[in-house]
Structure formats: structure tokens, C-alpha cells
């Protein structure tokens, strides 16, 4: 159990959410307020440890006086604002965005995607069998993690986590433009020739499974990956004195991947190569 600091007190501001008056701390986003009010707004590119990029546009809501819909994840609540989350217009845009996404990439490993597609009655098939897709082979060029851009929704989270928001390695960027835009390292080469330091913080924030542990990737390919049978144990990394929290995902008494609690006030879910990938010695049973 990690301790979350309370932070300095913030003044409350009042606005209207779906006709109901709500109070939210100054600086909070519409999404924060929605969650506090128990409303479930779908989000994909929003990340709890990152500045919202608002690129996916599934969290759009209607704000009185705004010509277009606004992304709930990044628009700050303002006093007197009138926000409506479930209007026909907002639901229509969410539905179409889900259809556009699901028709162009593989969302099979995206948590909650199937649920939202059902809820919004999205029909990704309706663009026809010839609809352009991001059909790319997974890139397996090292023993630690796999990049499967056929599942990538270009949420920019890995770019931000690798860049100035956390890791400061700047190994990842978006290259190209439009539908041909892809996440890439420099010169679009293999990971092993890039600036990557294998901290795996990009895997931690990836919302679709486009980035995954090689162990997970191999088990999925073999059909042995079974999340329901996994236990999670949070412990302290023993490699150095910082004391980062590790969450070990264990299936059949084997560590299959390592994550880190996002609410840890020191690491915010980030680890280094040793904490993230250096677990083989634990299960060395020779």
C-alpha cells in the first residue's frame, strides 16, 4: 500500500454537469469532475501519470457555447461552465471514433475497447472489407519487448513517457504524417540501434498492448497467456537503494511481467531496466 500525498488544498469551483451542479477543485479537468461524479467517460490516450495529449477524441463532451466538442481529459473545468456528457452529438462522435479506430487497428488487447464498442453500438465493419488498416508485422528485435504497431492508436503516451515527461531518453517519436504516421525510433531502425534504455516505461503507459513484454507476446502467441490465472504482488525492488515498488505478475509460479504502481509518489509507475526486466534471477531454479 503506497501513501498518496494529499497536496495543497485547492479552492472549489462550481459548474454544471449534465444539469446537476457540481464542485471541483480548481485546475481539475472535466474528466476529473466526471469521474468524481461517478460518470464513466471512455478514454484511450489519457494517462494518469501523463499530461493529456487529447489525440484519440473518445472522451469528447459538449460544452455550452463551444462550436465543437471538447476533450474532457484536457479541458479544465471553469466556473459556470455547462457540460453535457451523454448528448446525441457527443455519443455519435465517440461511436464514430471507436469505429474509425477499430476498423484501422487491432483493438483485441485494448482493455475495455470491446465493452465501449458494444455500449456505443459501433460497427467497425461498415467501412467494408477494403478499408485501409495498419497491417504491420510485430517488430521483434530484442529479448525484452515487442512493438506491434498493428495495435497502435498513436496516442503519443510512449513518446511522452520516453521524452521530457519521464524518462528523458527521447528514443521514441512520431514519424510520417496522416494515416502513414507511425511511432518510430530514429531512422525507423531496430530498437537495438536506438537511444532506447529499456526502462519499459512506454510499455507501462501503452493503452492497447502495442508495446508488450516479450514474455507476454510469446505466451499470447502460444495461447498460454491467461490474465485470470495471474496473481499480482507488489514488492520493493532490491537492485538499488531507491526502493521502487514493483508489481510482479505471476502465472503458474513464473513472473510473466513487471509493472509499477502509478500512485507511488516517487516513481509514478516508472522503473529502470533492472526493475522492469531483471527478474529472471528470481526464478533461476538450477
Amino acid at each position: 500500500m503506497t501513501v498518496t500525498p494529499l497536496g495543497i488544498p485547492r479552492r472549489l469551483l462550481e459548474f454544471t454537469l449534465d444539469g446537476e451542479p457540481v464542485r471541483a477543485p480548481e485546475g481539475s479537468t472535466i474528466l476529473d469532475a466526471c469521474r468524481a461524479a461517478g460518470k464513466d467517460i471512455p478514454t484511450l490516450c489519457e494517462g494518469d501519470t501523463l499530461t493529456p495529449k487529447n489525440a484519440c477524441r473518445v472522451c469528447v463532451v459538449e460544452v455550452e457555447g463551444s462550436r465543437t466538442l471538447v476533450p474532457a481529459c484536457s479541458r479544465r473545468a471553469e466556473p459556470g461552465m455547462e457540460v453535457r456528457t451523454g448528448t446525441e452529438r457527443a455519443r455519435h462522435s465517440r461511436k464514430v471514433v471507436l469505429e474509425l479506430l477499430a476498423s484501422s487497428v487491432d483493438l483485441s488487447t485494448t482493455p475495455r475497447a470491446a465493452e465501449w464498442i458494444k455500449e456505443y453500438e459501433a460497427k467497425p465493419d461498415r467501412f467494408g472489407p477494403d478499408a485501409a488498416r495498419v497491417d504491420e508485422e510485430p517488430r521483434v528485435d530484442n529479448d525484452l519487448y515487442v512493438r506491434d504497431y498493428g495495435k497502435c492508436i498513436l496516442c503519443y503516451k510512449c513518446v511522452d513517457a520516453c521524452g521530457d515527461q519521464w524518462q528523458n531518453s527521447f528514443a521514441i517519436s512520431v514519424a510520417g504524417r496522416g494515416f502513414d504516421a507511425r511511432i518510430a525510433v530514429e531512422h525507423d531502425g531496430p530498437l537495438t540501434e536506438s537511444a532506447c534504455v529499456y526502462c519499459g516505461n512506454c510499455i507501462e503507459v501503452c493503452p492497447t498492448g502495442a508495446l508488450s513484454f516479450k514474455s507476454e507476446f510469446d505466451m499470447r502467441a502460444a495461447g498460454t497467456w491467461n490474465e485470470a490465472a495471474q496473481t499480482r504482488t507488489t514488492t520493493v525492488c532490491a537492485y538499488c537503494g531507491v526502493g521502487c515498488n514493483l508489481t510482479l505478475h505471476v502465472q503458474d509460479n513464473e513472473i510473466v511481467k513487471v509493472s509499477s504502481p502509478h500512485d507511488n509518489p516517487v516513481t509514478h509507475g516508472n522503473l529502470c531496466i533492472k526493475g522492469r526486466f531483471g527478474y529472471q534471477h528470481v526464478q533461476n531454479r538450477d
Partner: protein
Amino acid sequence: MDLRFGDGKPTDEERAAVDALLGPPESSWEGADRDGMRAGDLRWARGGREARDRRDQLLPGLHAVNDRVGWISEGALDYLCRRLTVPPSEAYGVATFYAMFSVRPRPATVLHVCTDLACAAAGAGALCAGIESRLGPGSGVSVERSPCLGLCERAPAALAIRAGEPVRTAVSAPATVDSAVLAASAPDAAPEEPAAAMAVPQAGDPSLTLLRRVGAVDPASLDDYRAHGGYAALRRAFALGPAGVIREVTDSGLLGRGGAAFPTGRKWQATASQPDRPHYLVCNADESEPGTFKDRVIMEGDPYALVEAMTIAAYATGAHRGYLYLRGEYPRALHRMRHAIDRARARGLLGDDVLGQGYAFDIEIRRGAGAYICGEETALFNSIEGYRGEPRSKPPFPVEKGLFGKPTVENNVETLVNVLPVLTMGAPAYAAIGTGRSTGPKLFCVSGSVGRPGIYELPFGATLGELLELAEVRDGLRAVLLGGAAGGFVRADELDIPLTFEGTRQAGATLGSGVVMAFDDTVPLPRLLLRIAQFFRDESCGQCVPCRVGTVRQEEALTRMVERTGSGAAGDIALLREVGSAMRDASICGLGQTAWNAVESAIDRLGAYE
């Protein structure tokens, strides 16, 4: 930052191109020869704020290499990154963002053949095929199909760029297979382009305000500009003081001419009153809307007017530095503006002490590199700063946090040039031109099936029919595209629409950037719409889902519909409407929000698929 640079080595030529821009490297840490290591090199490294501050040299650096070699190799990119302390992955992301750069080897000469609306209607398809068959493989020329080159009055158009020292360019318009091939194979021998005034059919008409000097003045001569009334407006500005200038501009009712029609005075006031310093001025000359070429004609025909107008805007808003973001496809405008700025600086009209008034202002030109999206104001900031030209989400607005995170006023060329008559004739006289809500003169870019294509200047309030009559519209008019690819179509029986912001809005259309493109009944409408969809698909930056995927789905549906009408098209039309409304509502910026406008108007107003 702990940056890792690759082992790629630049060729001597690539190194020379970068060093010509940035100066020679000071230390082996930033790419100097290791053998000639300077004393202290072992203990000293450039870094931190000092290095990061040069990030905005990335786009000029990419241009430098691309201009010299024709493409950007790994070694060149790595060297540039080392010099600027830019992460190579980010520089790669930037280099691959722009259409004019290549990260793969290609011939030194690239021939851009415009295949956009006006050129397509003028036979660009056959032209391309002819050029490609003449310039087969091994010709040393890479032929690329290009979006609008802004030469619509002389369609079809081609632009040849030959890398080297110096880079050479040649424009061929109207292009034939012979003239385009000549431009590509011998850019130096290609005939000179016609004077800018040839694009102004009304040239010499004494009633002109904005275009009155185009054709009458020598665009290279500052003295001639002054002899034609130049710099009177700046003198008046200094007499009025910054607040007085803003008051005049506000009272004039000038609305931004870039498409959004925002009140210029209000924008200036909002920027001027920001306590954060410095303030910046940005002139948006990234004119890439298909069918638009007015900014090019002004910059080519009356470049000092823009220099003067930028000086006034900067003075009023408290900026001491201005950026002219100029479209990469406009070599002659670049040349003329560069010359004008240098001359103005040499004569004390730019620099530390403008006109001896103790006010410092200078202009830096930044070249775009082929990206329509960079005309969006926040994408333009990112582009200048050396990032991918992706729009930022607003708020915060540019008047508060714009270029380099500082208060910034951004206006397009036409808007700024309007400030000159506002000051010389005074706000009341200016406001008396046009209508109550749309004041002043307005430029229209007329092309397509008209006898006299070009830039027309009319007071707001003239009707579409009057404009087309002036341009000698040909018989059999079927439709008019108003406002460009982001605008919409109107029917041939709607020519009484008044050309004002409110009049077009009332008619369910938009003035946009002032495009008026006429199409007669020989133009196959479905193909035209498909071309518009392809344009948006190519130009989407890819940042947000509705635009990135939506523009592709739109293009796919329109491809299916090229041969279909009536009930056969109904399903796809319904699909287009659903996707279109989500793009309009949920896209981050204007590109995605307007990408479906023209197609929708063609379906609803023209019955394109009935």
C-alpha cells in the same frame, strides 16, 4: 537530457551545408573533428539551455541539407542533431513530416507537378503522364505529384527544384510537357516567370487599394516603393503610438482575411496587453489552400508593403521580432521578400532603431517545407520551433501562449497589408468601404473556367456574379467553389450571393481564404470531390483519430462513388455524413473540422450523385 547520437557521419557536402547555416562547430562534442580537439574539450560540453535554445534552427537545418543534397541522410540528420542537441528520433519525426523532404536517396532534381483542383481541370493528369513518359528512369529527375502550387491563374503548373550550391528553382506555368521538362533539366535556362502583375487583371485601375502598387512599383526598389506612398503608414503609426494604432485598426472593423474572420484590432489588443514578455509577431504566409495565390502575388509584386505592415503590427503589439512563415513552394516570393527585408534593414527601416524612432524590430523568414497544416496558427508555431507541425489544443490561445510559449499575434499576409490603408486613409474612411460588418477591400483568387483568372480586388458586398463577370466566366458554368477545399460549392444559379462574411454565411457558404473557383459542366464532379478528399487525406497531420482515419474513410467512400449515383451511392453518402459530422465535431483543428465541407455542399447543393 542524456542524448544518444548515432554513429552516422555526414559527407563533406552535408557538413558544409549545416555549417554554412550554424557556423563551424566549436567543440568535438558537437561534431568537430576529434583530431583537432580544442583545449578544454575534455571538460567542456555544450548543453542545457544554451543548446536547447537553438532547437528552432532544426527546420532551417533540414532545408540546408535538402537544398544542397536533395535528400537527408542518416549521417546528415545525426550531425544536425549533434549541432543542435536535438534528439535524433525527434528530428527524424520532423524530417518525415514535411512533403518536400526525403529521408531516402532521390535524384537531385525534383519536379513537382500540381495535380490539384485548378490544374486538374486544366489537364494536369495528361501533363503528368507526358512528363513521366519523357523523363523515364535514369533521367535524374524525380517527378512528384503535388498539391496546389498556388499558381492557379496559370494552370497547369510545375515547379522544379534542383539541389546544389546554390539550390536552383524554375517554375513552368502554364506548363506543357516541353516546358516542364526544360525547367527540370535546365532550371537556369528556363524562361523567366511572367511579372506578378500578370496575375492582377485589374492592374493599373486607379480604384484599387491593396493591389494598387502591384505592377506599378519595382518590387526590388525601396525608393520606388517610397515614391508610391510607401512608409507613410508607418510614419502615421509612430505619430499615433501603439495604442492609437490599435484603436484605428479596431475602429476600421478589419476582420482577419485568413479564413476565420476574427477582428484584428481585438487580437492586437489582447496581445499588446499581455504582461508576459517578449511578444512575437508571426506573419502567416503559408498559403496552401488549393486555389489561393493572393499572398504570393502581393509578396512578389509589392514586398515592401508586407515589410511595412509587419513593422506596424509589431509596433502596435509590442513585438520586437517578427517571423515571416513563407510557403516552401514559393521560390520567387522568398527571393523578393528576402531582398526587401535586407534592403529595409540596410536603410534603417528594420533593426535597432526603425525610422530613428528608437523602436527595434526585425523580421526573420522561415520557410515551410510542404505541409498545408502549418497554415493552422498553432501548427505554424510548432513548425518554427522545430517540432512536428501538429496543431496545439486551445486554450491557451496564441495571444496568451503562442510562439515559444509567449504572447503572439499571428496574421496572414492580406490582413496585414490591409493595415496600410487603414492608417493612411484613417479608420472612418476605411470602414466606409464595403458593408457594415465586412469593411474594407477584399481580394479574391479567381481561377478555373474563366477567361481572365487572377487576383481581383473588390469592396466587400459585390456579388459572386459581378466578380465572375469581371473574370469573364465561360459558358456552361456548373458550380463555384467558394473558400477553397475547406469551403464549399455553390450552384450556378446562386450568383447573387453577396461576397461578405455575413452574406456568405447566410447563404450557408463561406468566404474562407477568398477562393472563387469556377467549374463548367465538362468537369467531372465526382473526380473533383475525390481529389479534395485525397488532398485532406494527404495533408492530415495524423494527430487526432477523427481526422487521421476519417479522411481516409472519406476518400475510400468517394473512390467507390466515382462511378455510382442515385441509390447506389446512398449508403456511402450516409456513411460520409456520419463520419463527416464526427470529424467536424471532434477533430483538434480546422483541417479535420472542415475536411468534409466541400463534399457535403456538393452533395446537398449540387446533387453531385443524383
